[in-house]
Each structure stands twice: as C-alpha cells, then as structure tokens.
C-alpha cells in the first residue's frame, strides 16, 4: 500500500494529477462566471428544464421565511418529494419524504415528520444552516426519484449514482458509486464507498475498487460486479454530454441517477470533478483528453461526440486498436 512510484510511471499511465486538473483543465475550460450555473442547484435545474435535459421535476421554490407558512398548501397533492438547499453540499439538509399519512410525512426509514418539524427544517435551510459558508439560502422542492431496481443487488444504503466526466462535450470516463455499510451510506470513495468503473461503450462494469484496491464482489451484498450493467446507457451518455452545452463548461462531472420510469436524470453537475474515477476505471484520463483535443470533437454534434467516444473508449478487445 505505502509504495511510491516514479512520476514518469504515472505519466506513462496517463494519469491526471490534481495540479494539472486545476491549471490545465478547470482554469482553462471552466470560466468562473459560469460557476453559479452548477453551484446553485436551482439554477442548474432551471437551465436544464429550459434545455430539455431530464432532471427530477421541480415542484416549488421557497425563497423567504414568509413563504414557509404556505408550505402545506404547496405540498398538497404530492406524496413523495425531496426538499433540499440550493447551495448545500454533501447531502446536508436534504429531506427525503417518501410517503404521507394525513398531515404527517414519512421518511424512507419510516420516521415520521410532522408539519411543524418540516416548517422548521425549511426555515433553517433559508437561514443558511446547511449551505456553504452559512449564507442565507433558498429551499427547493423536487420530485422524489423512483430509483430503478437495476442496482438493487449492489446497494445497501443510499442511492447509487453514476458519475460521468465530460470533457468538451465528450463523455470520457464513467463510474458508479455505491455506498457501503463501511462508508456509512455516503457515496464518497475516500470514506469506503465502492467505485465501479464503467465501459463507455456499453455501460458494463470494468472493475470495482474499494479503498483504492480492486474487489470482485460488493462487500455487503456479495453480488458479483461482473453482471453489473447500466441500462439505457446511450441515453445516459447523451444526457451527460448535453450538460456541456448547457453549462458552457469544458470539464465537468455529471451526476446521474436512474428513475424507474423516466430513465436517467441529472442530479447535479460538478465543476471540479475528482480524480478517483481514474482509480475506479483503472485507466488514466490524459490519453482520452488528448484524443478529444486531437480529433477536434468539441465542434461535432452531440450524437457524433457520444458515438465516437463509445467506439474509441470501448474496453471490448475487438475495438481496441493496437494499444496496450
């Protein structure tokens, strides 16, 4: 574990480092002025709806403490929904309601939330209790995603999501993040979540890693990762690639969840995607980024960007041309 390798070895493996990511990718391709488009979840959602990009439906926005008292009326008619701060991070302040019983609401765990508790939660959100830096925030109410059961064998707590790194409109790498008991329901690889590298061509699992080391089976469910394949893969890649046009940012991480009926939905867009995806995929990003630059793909149509990426980054032996 505590082995160091020479920088030349990492370079040969095409691994993108943090400094190179910050200097050559983020500061070049992600203009500061567009950051609010991804940091503000409400803005992301509104932009996406305008662009026809699939997101969990927005039920309502609560901007001021005055609106809190009208909360019950606005929620009438919805039985499952999510209330989240627009500037929250790491899932803080996200209240998930899966059902209602009269005036009371039920969390997925079965815990009961009464109207007063919900109003207090929204009021706290508006005061900035959950937002970065404690700034006053806005609460938004959106549809509860009905998660596809495609991954039920691979998740214990929390929701598996799919992270696609999109470089200049081309999906270059993808992984699925599965929370484990060890990660305490969090999908953060640092904390023991499992990262499953996905084949860009098919959406099939390439390999899975936990704590930086390859594993064969899910540590909690014992399911073998070899059978994992993400459904509606092409649709999902196109969805992620379209986020570049919407955000005008050249290097983003798109977080996607699969809804039972609606299919892939954009949950969040990250302007500073981490590097762990390389570990999950067992591949360095640099050659792929270079390929996109060399091909001049950023000017191509959405369909072409996605299909070219699918054939280029395929892990199937037949398509790999002379590279090893």
């Amino acid at each position, binding site marked *: 574990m505590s082995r160091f390798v020479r*920088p030349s070895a*990492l370079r040969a493996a095409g*691994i993108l480092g*943090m400094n190179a990511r910050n200097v*050559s990718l983020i500061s070049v391709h992600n203009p500061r002025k567009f950051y609010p488009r991804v940091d503000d979840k409400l803005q992301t959602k509104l932009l996406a709806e305008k662009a026809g990009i699939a997101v969990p439906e927005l039920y309502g926005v609560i901007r001021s403490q005055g609106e809190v008292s009208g909360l019950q009326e606005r929620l009438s008619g919805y039985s499952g929904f999510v209330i989240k701060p627009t500037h929250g991070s790491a899932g803080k302040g996200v209240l998930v309601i899966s059902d209602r019983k009269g005036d009371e609401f039920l969390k997925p765990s079965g815990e009961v939330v009464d109207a007063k508790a919900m109003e207090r939660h929204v009021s706290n959100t508006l005061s900035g209790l959950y937002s970065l*830096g404690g700034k006053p925030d806005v609460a938004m109410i959106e549809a509860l995603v009905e998660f596809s059961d495609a991954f039920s064998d691979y998740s214990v707590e929390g929701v598996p999501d799919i992270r696609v790194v999109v470089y200049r409109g081309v999906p270059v790498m993808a992984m699925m993040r599965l929370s484990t008991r060890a990660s305490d329901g969090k999908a953060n690889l640092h904390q023991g979540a499992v990262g499953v590298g996905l084949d860009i061509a098919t959406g099939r699992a390439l390999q899975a890693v936990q704590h930086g080391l390859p594993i064969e089976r899910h540590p909690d469910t014992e399911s073998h990762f070899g059978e994992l394949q993400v459904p509606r893969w092409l649709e999902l890649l196109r969805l992620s690639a379209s986020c570049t046009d919407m955000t005008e940012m050249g290097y983003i991480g798109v977080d996607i969840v699969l809804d039972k009926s609606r299919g892939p939905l954009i949950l969040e867009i990250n302007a500073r995607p981490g590097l762990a995806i390389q*570990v999950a995929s067992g591949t360095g990003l640099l050659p792929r980024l270079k390929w996109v630059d060399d091909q001049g793909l950023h000017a191509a149509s959405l369909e072409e960007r996605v299909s070219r990426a699918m054939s280029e980054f395929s892990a199937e032996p037949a398509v790999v041309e002379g590279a090893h």
Partner: protein
Amino acid sequence: MSERLQLATVVTILIVLGLGLTLYKHFSLGFPLLPGEVTQAWTAEARISFESDGDDVEVSFALPQSSSTLRILDQYSASSAYQFKRVETDDRPRAVWKGEGKKGKQVVYYQVVAFEGQGASRPIDRVPPTGTDKPDLKPAYLAAAKDVVSGLKKKASDPVAFATNLIQALAASNPDENVRFLLGVSSDANSRTRLAVDLINLSGTPARIARGISLEDGRRREKLSDLVEVWTGRQWQDFAPDTGEPGLPDRFLLWQRGGESLLDLVGGHGSRVTFSTLSEIRGTQGLVILKGEEEKATLVDFSIYTLPINQQNIFKLLLLVPIGTLVVVLMRSVVGVRTSGTFMPILIALAFKQTELLSGLIMFIVVVGIGLVIRAYLSRLNLLLVPRISAVVIVVIILFAGVSIASYKLGIEAGLTVTFFPMIIMAWTIERMSVLWEEDGAREALVQGGGSLAVAVLVYLTMSIPLVEYLTFSFPELLLVVLAVTLMLGHYTGYRLTELRRFAPMVHE
C-alpha cells in the same frame, strides 16, 4: 500560450529585479549576505575646555571628513548647554557652539563614529594653493636647508618622490649633518613634519600641514598629530610621517586640513583640545544602514530601516509571512498535504514564534481538543452559523483563561503565552474541523488537522532559521523572488508527492 509567456516574463523581471537589488545592496552598499558579520568601528571624542570670560561664548571647531580608508558614520555634539550647529565653509565642515552668560570653566564634546569601510572615498582636496609659502628660516639655516633640498632634488625631481625622500631623510635614524643641524634639539615627529613642509616649500612645491588622529583603542588625552601634504599639481597628497610613503597612515582620521584653524574661541581663553579614541565592534549591517542614510542611498533612505524600531520589529515578523506562504504552497501543490484552511498554518506558526514550539503545540492541541468536544455538543443544538461560531469564540476565550490560570497555578509559565494564539483563528479551526468530522468522518478530520499542524510546524521551523530571518529583513527585495517562485508554482502541473502513492496501484510493473 501567451499566458505562459506573460508569466515567464513577469517571473523573469521579478527575479532579475529581486536578485539585482540584493546584489546591488551587497556589493555597492556593503550589506553583508550573512547575519552576524561585524566590523570594527571607532569612536573619537574631542574634548574642548576653556575658561569663559563671563559672558557670551562662541566656539568654532574644525571637523573631520571621511577619507579613502575611514568612513565617518555618525557624529554629534554632546553639550546640551550650548546651541549647536554644523556649518560648512569652503566645503569644510565646522562645529559651532554658542552660549550666553557662561561663567567659569566650560567643556564641550564632539564625537565621531568611524569605521574602516570599503568603497568610501573622501572628497579629494583639489583646491589649488594660493602660492608657495616662503619659509621663514634664519640665514644660517637657509643655507643648510638649500643644501638638503638641492641634494635631494638631484635624486628625484617629481614632487611625490622628492617628498618621500625628504621625509625619509628627516626620519632617518642616522641623519646627515645638515639635517641634524636643521632639526636642532627638538626632533619629535611634529617638528620634523613642520621642517619637511618648510623644505618642500623651499624647493618650490607648495606644501602644508594637515592634522588628524590615529584611531587606537583606549587612547585618552591625545593631541592631533601632523602630516605633510604636498600639492602634486592636481591635488593635495598626504604622506605618512614615518615612512614617507604617499597616502594616509592606517586608521588615520584627518581632522584639520589646509589653512583652517582647529579652534576659534570668542569670549573665552585658556582653551585646550584633547582627543580620546575607543574601538568597538558593531554589526556590519547597522553601520551600513547608517552609511546609507548618510549618503541618502534611495534603497536605504526609503526602506524599513527608517521606521521606528517598534514598527521595524513588526515588519520583521510580517516579512516572514511570504516565506510561510511559500512553504504552504509547496506543501499543498508539490507534496500534496491536505490542510484545513489555506493559510491557517501560517497564523499558527506566527503564534508558535511567540510561545515557543513545544508549549505552543501542546496548548494548541489542548484548546482545539476541548473546543471540539464542546463544539460537538453545540452542533446538537442546531444553531445558525454566526451564533455558533460566536459561541465557539467565547468558548475559546474561556479556554484561554482556563489554561492560563491553571498552568500559572501549577507553576508552568508557558501557559500564560496561550493568548498569543489568534483566537478567531482557533475558533474557525475548531469549527472547520468539527464540520469536517461530521461530513467526512474522523479520519479526514485527523488527516487535515494533522496536516495543518505539521505544515504549521514546518512553517515555524523555516521562519526560525536565522539566515531566513536575516535575509528577509535585510533584503526585503528578495520577496520579489519569493513572489516569482510562488507565481511559477501557480502553473505547476506536475504530480503531487502524495499522488505518487495514491495512484501507485494503477501502475502495473
């Protein structure tokens, strides 16, 4: 790529400017590159005593000037009972004291601090003589004098060689008959010098007496000694009285030159001038700064050294901060240490400079540790951000007081220095670590907290290197170089040291 070109240009300019100014200060102004370099300095004090006639008194006194081997750094009058001012007449400085209603014995002092400095050149005296003084010699002596002069003139005709030969002939242990006759009974150094001046004037070359003092340690009640000065046609040249070599003797401070008087006294009588000299060791840097101020060298005149000492000390600390930022940038971008808060380690390191490292570390860990426990309880109360941090600040201050009092009662003085920690920073550290703990787990909080502390210790150790402290304060222009390096690191795209380990499993060998 024009962005890279711009950066390269700026970096080059900064480095050239920073290093250039540093080298200029070293070579041209004499700033030592290493701390602790010392220079021998001398203090010469003139004591002028006289009896007042009982009323207004005015004393005018010739003052020394720097020479090619001695540099005057500082000079001052030490007689508060008199009005003092320095005047320049014919380019020669004089001290003038004025007093009213003085009675009885009076004493005034004048002190000069000089050191053997490189690169100092005295204003060469190029004022031509008004004519050759006809020496006032009795006819009997005149004949002998003419003999001596013509004898020596045969050997050397140019005025410098002639003067050297003449002085040597007068100083010889076994002088020739004519010389012995001319010297007569009094053959002390000063009368020999006066005779040499007479003879050189007789030869047709203008000559005169200059007077000064030889700087030696612990001399008291000295008189000025005389030197021969000869007009070479372009300038007045001094000659050593013993060897006759052209040039001033070592450590000889010229005090009175040409026709000026040493002392003019109005309203008094019975004056006496004595000198005492003292050697002292002074830090070269201090002398150089004095010299720079005297010369109005812009780099010194508009520098931190001209601020009051108090402010200078603050700057001493402030000038170290860029070194701290450089260490932080290196640790974060090149090594890849995760710290909580970018520049928190620097502020902690500055606090360590006041508390000493070990006690600082212990107190930091104690305060942050207890703070975290209390903060963990506060988080259960679901407080808003600003009240929550305010509460933590209050807790930190209570902890400060508690640690101080407890350690004082236990007889540990170090505990009292806890107040040097910036409390707002401590509160924020507790807040950040606590949030980190909740969101990313205890491991991440310990990694980042430990990282911050390790970087803080490293920053402290770097800031404490005497050479670093000295260089940042003596050559603030080196900060331009630090800036350049920081800018370059801003474009560093190489791997971090920690990434060489993080991604190691991906490299199959």
